[in-house]
């Protein structure tokens, strides 16, 4: 049985759903970052698979830009995480009720 594009897309959707489960399920800010990384990687797998099977390089370049976005997201996110920890003393998302009316 040879590999088709659908195999890679199914892998991608499985990984994306795992990441989404993590985003909704996790209550800890740092654990939430892990889940977002998983979702970004799932998108990368889909883009590279499409690029490879269609023979168009655009998908690979977009995956490259997604990696750049992921890197900057981690940088800013960790900065905010430190601030939250300094203010709240915990990383639990349920404690972030500052803007609650």
């Amino acid at each position: 049985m040879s590999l088709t594009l659908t195999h890679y897309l199914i892998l991608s959707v499985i990984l994306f759903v795992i990441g989404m489960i993590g985003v909704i399920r996790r209550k800890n800010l740092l654990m939430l970052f892990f889940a977002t990384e998983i979702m970004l990687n799932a998108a990368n797998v889909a883009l590279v698979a499409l690029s490879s099977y269609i023979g168009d390089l655009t998908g690979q370049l977009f995956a490259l830009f997604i990696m750049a976005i992921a890197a900057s997201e981690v940088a800013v996110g960790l900065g905010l995480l430190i601030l939250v920890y300094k203010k709240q003393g915990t990383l639990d998302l349920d404690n972030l009720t500052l803007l609650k009316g």
Partner: protein
Amino acid sequence: MEAIAFYVFAVLITALFLVTVFSKNALYAMSSLAAGMVLISGIFFVLGADFLGAVQLVVYSGAVMALYAFGMMFFDATKDVKEKNPSAKTIFLLSGASAVILVVIFSAPQIGRNIKALVTGTPGADNPHVIGEVLFTKYLIPFEVAAVMLLVAMIAGIILAGKKMDVSLSESEDDLVDEASELKEQK
């Protein structure tokens, strides 16, 4: 051969990321995330995207190492991370969203059957060669914008994390509150 590699990588990545999402131990979650990222670069190599595989290894070893450092700072690795159990609403939302994504993914290849390759680069050249060729011609401006974005993110990270690094923000505020209450008492 390609199929064997794909199935091995796919099963391992799925298992590792499931551990990342469901593990209660922060150390296990981080380690399995790092291993999963490395194995995803294996998927890229199988697909013939050599350059992206290498970039994946470099970028995510860096990013995940930073997360690692923070995890070690914030968590006791021997203790479990305390989290509440998801509610019924969460489970409903999860299953619904998963179903929608599955339908889209399975129907997308049918819609995209007559897509033609537009950006192909020099035929017969290596993958890093053609990536560089296209990146520095057609995608030059997005590339520069990404560079500026990374600079902005770096400065933002430094400003956010490094501001008053010598004094803890919460402590200094507590001190102010303490001083104010002491003044009141003296009066």
